[in-house]
């Protein structure tokens, strides 16, 4: 642990000296001290892009969580059903395979034209990108349930539905959570992209404005906030996962 801290301090020190000693022009990169200062000033005053860091943060995370939860609510059951019931798989899979390769950011133009640049549009973009990992991992989770578990269920005379709910879903839970964490990550990335291209609020918009106004400290503050929020959400998610799958430690 100690070595890790030493590593990070070294990195920050190196960054500070590089800028102070002029190795890198202050225009392009500002020292960490200035970034810290910008972070605190930005918390309070809305200049230069018309909203405080807090406002951006709330705008971003509310939209991200909205799209993410929607994606889980629709994607997970669909993936589970696709994994277990063949008709559902044959119906849903072709469309899914058709839309899957199109990356989230490619949806931004068409959604912006159709739904404008309001929160709904961004939630829809995030939903589209976050639903893909949910479906894939839910589907894989079910497909990788060991056959002998289902064999046991069948020899106990359990109906297909009970085998699905009492054996397949609990067994697939860990893979499900991998998918959920992946989709949170994708949602967060898609949000930043959407905000950078078509929005008036949010962290993505803030760093985009930072670029236009040549203020590297704003950009870096925005990036660090985005990074730490993403990490925070994932940490929260693994806490929930630990509680739900106490047995999670696979042998």
């Amino acid at each position, binding site marked *: 642990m100690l070595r890790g801290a030493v590593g990070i301090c070294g990195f920050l020190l190196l960054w500070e000296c590089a800028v102070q000693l002029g190795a890198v022009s202050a225009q392009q990169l500002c020292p960490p001290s200035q970034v810290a200062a910008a972070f605190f000033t930005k918390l309070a005053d809305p200049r230069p892009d018309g909203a405080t860091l807090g406002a951006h943060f709330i705008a971003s995370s509310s939209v991200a969580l909205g799209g993410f939860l929607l994606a889980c609510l629709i994607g997970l059951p669909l993936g589970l059903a696709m994994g277990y019931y063949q008709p559902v798989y044959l119906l849903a899979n072709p469309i899914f395979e058709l839309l899957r390769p199109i990356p989230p950011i490619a949806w931004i133009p068409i959604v912006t034209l159709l739904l404008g640049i309001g929160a709904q549009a961004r939630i829809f973009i995030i939903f589209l990108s976050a639903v893909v990992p949910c479906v894939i991992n839910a589907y894989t989770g079910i497909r990788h349930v060991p056959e002998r578990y289902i064999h046991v269920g069948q020899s*106990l*005379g359990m109906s297909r539905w009970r085998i699905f709910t009492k054996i397949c879903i609990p067994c697939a839970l860990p893979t499900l959570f991998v998918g959920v964490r992946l989709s949170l990550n994708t949602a967060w990335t898609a949000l930043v992209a959407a905000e950078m291209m078509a929005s008036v609020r949010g962290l993505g918009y803030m760093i985009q404005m930072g670029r236009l106004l040549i203020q590297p400290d704003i950009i870096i503050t925005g990036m660090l906030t985005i990074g730490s929020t993403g990490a925070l959400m994932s940490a929260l998610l693994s806490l929930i996962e630990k509680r739900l799958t106490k047995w999670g430690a696979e042998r």
Partner: protein
Amino acid sequence: MSDAKVQVRQLTKGFGELLVLDNLTFDVRPGEFLCVVGPTGCGKTTLLNLLSSWWTPTQGEICIDGRAMDPKTQNLSFVFQESSAFPWLTVEQNVQFGMKEKRFPPELIAQRTREVMGLLDLESVKEKYCHEISASAEQRVVIGRSFALHPDFLLMDEPYAQLDIKFRLHLEDAILALNRSTGSTCLFVTHNIEEAVYLAQRCIVLSNKPTSIKAVRTIDLPYPRDTCSPEFIAIKDEITEMIKWW
């Protein structure tokens, strides 16, 4: 003979033109402990999958108490070689899983759980999950779950093949005790001839592929059997000769 618990008639299974099981016919008496032994890779697993209604036979039929076998109305249990204990349930929940699915009355479930957990000394690890207990304890959980149902027909596919020799002796006695106390009809499949002779009242010897019944050997030694006694050795050698393929 009509008093047989399980009747298997002309059981045949082929995949395309590859014939795996060739016309197997045998009976299992109520409460009997029957062993099936055969050379490595002689279709024992195919037989087990058919007997547990996981696969449907190409030809022939399996009846329990005269009626065609049906997992919904009859109690069937299967103990695999690999552990099939559910990792998301604790040891106690695992043992009770079968009974709860068959909607046994609660007090019967409690009584049977105590009985089985006692015999397999799982009391100490009652609240633990599967990854917290040793492989032998986990397999005992599966055996407990199966015997707790007092099944009409219990199939076992070499349940402790992957366990240490020391656990094997301990488990063999536990299984025999459970077979006697619950009176369930057991069919035990194994590669290990000494194990089959130690456990079985009757032993079916299978031939190589396409598998058919080579011989049926009744073993009328008293329990518990001494693996070093001359009669035990004689029977073991006799069966080994029948199977020896190298």
